[in-house]
């Protein structure tokens, strides 16, 4: 039975939301683990939740990235276990070097809290294998530092390696400037590492996984957690 850890940092605030979806909606055996208590790679998958770890001081995610828990997560990632970073969790994974690039302040200089459309660019990750390539998911964002950045000349390589997992798109599934809520390069909303088992995204799938929280009662975010379950338990999950 695969067991998931949701890692709590000082300032995490979407930890219980992620726990709720994992435990009560997709029925994954899940523990909420204080980062200092994560001393061994005892879990089968790790979720770094959203929030404002260490007050976002220096840079969002930068201080949590130096937590010894990230060495455990790195070890787990190297062994191929699924690692998911949501919002601040994404920022932490980038700052810890588990994912390439940087996440900078929104180009609008405003905190943006809104629903976005994400186009699934690859289904090769443990978090998108139950989605369809090209499918559009409606999932909300809420962040001040969500502008994904990588040197422009490195984008084709990211594309070739199928490391771009989600792009912000409009209702016609086009990645336009208007559909880009934060100025991310190439409308990138989520990426994975080369192996595909570490994924980070700025949108909050845990806020779009039960009807009462969602637009039009949809549960588009759930496919990410369902995919993770299938990875942990095989096709019967």
């Amino acid at each position, binding site marked *: 039975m695969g067991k998931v850890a949701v890692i709590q940092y000082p300032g995490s605030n979407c930890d219980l939301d992620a726990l709720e979806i994992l435990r009560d909606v997709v029925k994954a055996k899940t523990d909420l683990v204080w980062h200092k208590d994560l001393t061994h790679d005892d879990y089968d998958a790790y979720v770094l939740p959203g929030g404002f770890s260490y007050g976002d001081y*220096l*840079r969002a995610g*930068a201080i949590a*990235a*130096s937590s010894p828990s990230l060495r455990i997560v790195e070890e787990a990632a190297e062994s191929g276990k699924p690692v998911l970073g949501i919002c601040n969790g994404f920022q932490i994974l*980038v*700052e810890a070097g588990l994912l*390439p*690039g*940087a996440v*900078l*302040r*929104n*180009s*609008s*200089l405003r905190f943006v809290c809104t629903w976005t459309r994400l186009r699934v660019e690859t289904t090769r990750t443990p978090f998108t294998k139950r989605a369809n390539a090209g499918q559009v998911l409606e999932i909300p964002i809420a962040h001040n530092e969500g502008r994904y*950045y*990588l*040197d*422009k000349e490195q984008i084709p390589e990211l594309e070739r390696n199928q490391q771009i997992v989600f792009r912000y798109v409009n209702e016609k599934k086009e990645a336009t400037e208007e559909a880009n809520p934060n*100025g991310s390069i190439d409308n990138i909303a989520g990426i994975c590492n080369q192996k595909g088992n570490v994924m980070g995204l700025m949108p909050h799938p845990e806020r779009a996984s039960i009807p009462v929280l969602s637009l039009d009662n949809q549960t588009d975010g759930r496919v990410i957690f369902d995919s993770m379950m299938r990875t942990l338990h095989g096709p019967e999950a």
Partner: protein
Amino acid sequence: MTPGSHVVEVIVENKPLARDPEGETIHQNLILKGGYNQVTGVRTGKLLRMNIEAKSPEDARAIVRKLSDDLRIYNPAAHTIQVRIVG
């Protein structure tokens, strides 16, 4: 040079190709609107001023340079730094 306390500053900026919307806003909406048309660009950044015990100012600077790389005071994917001795 005798050991002593030195002051070293680290200035973190976005790389030239990474847009700096804060700098652009200050430039367009404050400086140019205020009539200072001779200002052709503004970049913002973050400044960290550190007090260091070291043998010399150069040693202090080397310590700060090393810790900036080791502890990722900046993210090399998006930022550049300048490390300078100020006292």
